[in-house]
């Protein structure tokens, strides 16, 4: 089942959204190790080819190897199309590695779009660019800037205090702090929320490599350092959850996600809660979020907390003025969402930023939905209930 999830997602990306899915893009999108992403792509290609469902798939590979040229041994690394793969491999004296570089529906004329895809996803993940790579450098510790913003300062302070808390909790739980050279153990467990949360926090601190404690982390799944250690499940679910988060309530998907929503909610919110630890409302958030998670709620609530945390993560300087509903969601989630968007005093740009800044890019079409919905009431032409319209109008004036 887990296999199905990511395969379906890749399927969705490639066929429905017609995206170019490079291994790097997939790695950042799903929050998985690069090697994992490569294998996922490979599995997908194999299965699709076996099924022979007629869907056209074009694959590009990365070939690297060595050959003797001009008297010395040259190492070559090349991105090649599938049809040229064998030719290139035959020319190399030693083929060191071959792996899938990207999958896309259309045939690529040149490698320009591959670079663009990688560049775009990298731009949105600059702060943790080597999070999913295979090499960690112990010396690469980002310095805390001297002119840090107040929030960052707060964060680091709180992080320090939480660190000490976390380590003590960790030792209580019997987990030793992982060294940077070893594969860090990520304690699993849906139940022990505090333990897991503390563990993920301590992971952040114990990892000297990327102490993003000093920097506001982008909301990424909990697979930070050890995707290989069985957190694949949570990654999948995490990824799946985040994908579905932005999807406004496909009921079918909700049903599918029902079982797994609990798990991803945990893994997804853990880092998010850990990251903006310094921000004011997160502590308050923790309680309701947890309660919501314990009940098998739909993804929306988590979505909002995620949104909020993500939003605050991304807009460090702005004070959060979002008021999220603590109450249970109503049946008409669409309208409620709109309501919430209206009641907040933030501007439209912020909301748009919210959707666009999340770097688990959902379907483009899906992304447009919330945007449109948010735009709708503002323009006052949304096809919503009267109550919402009224609310929207007052909200409109209130904002000013």
């Amino acid at each position: 089942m887990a296999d199905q999830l990511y395969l379906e997602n890749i399927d969705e990306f490639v066929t429905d959204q017609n995206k170019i899915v490079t291994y790097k893009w997939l790695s950042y999108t799903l929050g998985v190790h690069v090697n994992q992403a490569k294998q996922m792509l490979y599995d997908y290609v194999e299965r699709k080819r076996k099924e022979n469902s007629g869907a056209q798939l074009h694959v590009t590979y990365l070939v690297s190897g060595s050959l003797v040229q001009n008297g010395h041994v040259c190492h070559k690394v090349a991105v090649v199309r599938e049809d040229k793969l064998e030719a290139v491999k035959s020319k190399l004296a030693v083929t060191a590695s071959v792996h899938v570089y990207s999958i896309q529906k259309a045939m690529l004329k040149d490698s320009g779009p591959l670079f663009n895809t990688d560049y775009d996803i990298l731009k949105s993940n600059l702060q943790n660019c080597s999070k999913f790579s295979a090499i960690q450098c112990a010396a690469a510790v980002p310095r805390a800037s001297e002119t840090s913003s107040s929030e960052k300062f707060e964060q680091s302070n709180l992080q320090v205090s939480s660190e000490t808390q976390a380590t003590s909790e960790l030792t209580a739980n019997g987990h030793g702090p992982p060294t940077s050279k070893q594969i860090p153990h990520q304690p699993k467990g849906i139940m022990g929320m505090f333990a897991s949360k503390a563990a993920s926090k301590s992971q952040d601190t114990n990892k000297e490599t990327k102490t993003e404690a000093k920097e506001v982390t982008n909301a990424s799944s909990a697979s930070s350092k050890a995707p290989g250690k069985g957190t694949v499940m949570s990654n999948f679910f995490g990824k799946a959850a985040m994908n579905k988060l932005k999807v406004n309530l496909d009921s079918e998907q909700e049903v599918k996600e029902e079982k797994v929503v609990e798990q991803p909610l945990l893994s997804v919110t853990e880092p998010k809660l850990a990251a903006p630890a310094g921000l004011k409302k997160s502590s308050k958030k923790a309680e309701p979020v947890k309660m919501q998670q314990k009940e098998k709620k739909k993804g929306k609530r988590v979505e909002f907390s995620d949104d909020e945390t993500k939003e605050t993560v991304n807009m460090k300087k702005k004070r959060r003025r979002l008021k999220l509903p603590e109450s249970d969601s109503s049946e008409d989630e669409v309208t409620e969402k709109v309501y919430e968007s209206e009641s907040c005093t933030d501007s439209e740009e912020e909301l748009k930023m919210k959707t666009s800044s999340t770097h688990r890019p959902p379907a483009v079409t899906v992304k447009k939905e919330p945007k449109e919905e948010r735009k709708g009431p503002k323009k006052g032409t949304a096809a919503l209930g009267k109550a919402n319209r009224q609310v929207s109008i007052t909200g409109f004036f209130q904002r000013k």
Partner: protein
Amino acid sequence: MGYGAGLSGLTSETEQGPPPWPGTHHVCRAGCPEGPHSAVPAVSQQRHLCPSARGDVHQLLPALPAGGAQLQPSVCPHLRHPPPPDEALPGSGVRVKKLCELQPGEKCCVVGTLFKAMPLQPSILREVSEEHNLLPQPPRNKYIHPDDELVLEDELQRIRLEGTIDVSRLVTGTVLAVLGSVRDDGKFLVEDHCFAGLAPQAPAPPLDMDRFVLLVSGLGLGGGGGESLLGTQLLVDVVTGQLGDEGEQCSAAHVSRVILAGNLLSHSTQSRDSINKAKYLTKKTQAASVEAVKMLDEILLQLSASVPVDVMPGEFDPTNYTLPQQPLHPCMFPLATAYSTLQLVTNPYQATIDGVRFLGTAGQNVSDIFRYSSMEDHLEILEWTLRVRHISPTAPDTLGCYPFYKSDPFIFLECPHVYFCGNTPSFGSKIIQGPEDQTVLLVAVPDFSATQTACLVNLRSLACQPISFSGFGAEDDVLGGLGLGP
């Protein structure tokens, strides 16, 4: 396929599932020091330590065979006719003399600095001079001419050189010793000459495992070449361990340093025309280098997050023009300077990496010698500068250089183990041996924006391997791009 540990792995708190995905562990970067870099201070900082000035040849006399009274053939490889044994005895035979002491017809040895009078050499005085009314010369590839003449200068005098000496090969600023005699017309007839030779070298400590240093130069950002951008991204991905399978990533983890040897920005970012335009025309336009530096910052961020990086400025980079070029300012790299693994260093640059001494430039010295000498191969020129024991003899004559008057920092006091220069047209590498058991690896680092090639130096074996990157283009010339074409 069984990569799932199953849901069971999640419900239990204490049990940990087996890693379902092979190869998704992390390899630690080799050779990361616990503390800050152990780099030897750059040449520019050492200039006040240099004991003698360039014009003063006495410093080289100890380098010449002991006693200075004769030229030992073993030290001077260019000496084609070694003096007969009786002449080599100290006290008799050839003496080292100053120019003012020369007697016509007497065979002797003179040490001095070379000056090459070249009619084609661009001279600002000639250009500006009204009586000549000359148009400015178009830039040429080489300025050599059969009418070039060599003049030897010491502290007091100068003398024209003739004879068995290759005029076209030598350049101004070379310090050498010539063996011969003065003729009646006042010219010195050269029978043989020799250079200072390789400096003494301290042996490098042996390494127990393979460590690599990646040398790249000429990234050429802002140049608008889409192909080279993909190549740059592939390079960064290989070094940071994203590309390749586990074996490759393990090898990449052994890269303990990346040195970017100049020309990080492209020539086209210099936008010299905006200097000549009126201010009101260029007020709102942004310099082309701004975007390029932003791109560079992102690349450096990716690299510094994974490997120690040393960034040297080059000819087209936003720093001072004259040698030694000062490091790029950290304010240009707000993202990357957060990491202490990023080091902005001077050009020329000298460092000791894992006990191996590196010395290199961004290539301005070699390309300047190329313009004024008949030597064609950049690697050959690189070797020649090592044998002449001076990084850039043509500075400050034709290459901009700070006017050092007390000491010359570009003299080799000690022979490095790896000597490189950047931005050459093609890759070249060679190991040379010195007379005193010196072993030097010479590397001509090619221009990445043109060749998509970088150099991997193995510190343990002192071997160098080129590594090329390529994408695929519309013309299906993948094999050609890799250099594998028919």
